[in-house]
């Protein structure tokens, strides 16, 4: 279970989140609705992914605090999908997905290729694999980020505002894909903004007044 315990985030004197406590449902889709522009949702997701450290409090996965995870364990467990960017501009799309897998020796080389092909097919991005990141639009960049998480089969997928700019049909097929992933036992935490569809989520939260509140 992904658990936040007394989590506070602040930049200098600017408190972004204050004393957040939450148990996200495992093997389900959890959504966090943004309440404003600078509400700290991305920062919260990065703390959950272990990319940023909170000012105080802890993030736990299966009762273990994230700082106790080794690099490889953290990589295998938590995958963060950026809302913007998230790809290294020196590498092709394929290498952006493959290099971290090779670096951590998650799968053998030939298996990496097969798995990337499979994930790309699911997200309909096979034609993007040989391109460079600068050749992608923002929706394609977010799909590549998601493909990286799917290839990895991370236990927790943290998705930041993936729906912006997507047509309705794409959002529906994305929801089906995420539900299928959640049914396999993956915990999905997803930030949504106004206008995004979160009807497929099992648990919903809203981020307002520097706190996370469960709404359903």
């Amino acid at each position: 279970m992904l658990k936040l315990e007394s989590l506070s985030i602040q930049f200098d004197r600017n408190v972004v989140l204050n004393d957040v406590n939450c148990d996200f449902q495992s093997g389900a889709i959890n959504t966090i609705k943004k309440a404003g522009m600078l509400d700290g949702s991305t920062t919260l997701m990065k703390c959950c992914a272990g990319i940023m450290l909170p000012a105080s409090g802890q993030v736990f996965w299966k009762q273990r605090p994230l700082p106790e995870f080794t690099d490889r364990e953290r990589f295998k467990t938590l995958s963060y999908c950026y809302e913007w960017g998230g790809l290294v501009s020196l590498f092709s799309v394929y290498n952006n997905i493959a290099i971290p897998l090779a670096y951590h020796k998650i799968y053998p080389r030939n298996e990496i290729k097969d798995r990337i092909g499979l994930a790309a097919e699911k997200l309909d991005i096979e034609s993007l694999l040989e391109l460079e990141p600068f050749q992608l639009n923002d929706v394609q960049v977010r799909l590549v980020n998601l493909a990286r998480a799917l290839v990895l089969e991370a236990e927790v997928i943290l998705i930041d505002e993936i729906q912006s700019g997507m047509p309705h049909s794409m959002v529906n097929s994305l929801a089906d894909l995420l539900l299928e992933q959640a049914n396999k036992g993956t915990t999905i935490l997803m930030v949504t903004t106004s206008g995004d569809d979160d009807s497929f989520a099992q648990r919903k939260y809203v981020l307002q007044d520097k706190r996370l509140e469960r709404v359903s």
Partner: protein
Amino acid sequence: MTQIPLSFLAGLGAFVRLRWAYVSDLLGLFTLTCYQIPHLARHSKRLVFWMLFKRQLYNTGFKAAYVNCAIATFLGVAFADQVSTYVQKVENFADLFVILVVREIAPLISGIILIARSATAVTAEIGHLKLNDEFEVLEAQSVSPTFMFILPIFFAFPLSLLIMLVYFNSVTLLASWLYLDWFTLTDWQWDNFLYAITDRLTTGELLITALKAVVGGVVIGLVCLHSGNSVGDRFTDIPRTISASTTSLLFGYFAICIGLSLVAY
């Protein structure tokens, strides 16, 4: 009256403090890089390193070959033309060739080419990665940016400079002999000419030249990586950083080459 020396001392102190902080940063970067070297023992990481190292070596060592060879040809011709006017014996020509070209000019020009072609490119590349938070992207994948971006450059730059020195000396030598053979009245045979030069290339001579390449390459690599990483949030930081870094590199590299020559010879 007392304010002038005090402000001078304050300025001097600030200068020394800044320089010391810069050198400490470079030493820190060097230590951080050395700390990553043991990771190369792991096969999976070595594969990733090898891919990035080959790319860097190709860009710095191989793609610089044509400019290096062209400058070496011009230098060889100019050197042969000038020196042959004053020198009649092949042994004397060889002495001057080793002292001027092998010891001093080849390391300096090869270093300048490395700085102008590759160090500026690496500074821009690292600056761009920093500006776009792409180091964080690697950290999000639990991948060390030092391993991915710094280690390949740390190894590729000295090796490239060493390769460039070999090109440069070989091409200058050949160009000199061809010029002497075709356009002057000297009747030096290639075998004698080559023997006279190689006879003067002692092990010490080769070691000092190699040391210039290795120390120079490492310093050039570290300085441009450090400069790239110092880019802030503005796009204009990148050209400013390249300009400042190139100036530091030229000073630093010349100091290393001339310092090593003074100590060794």
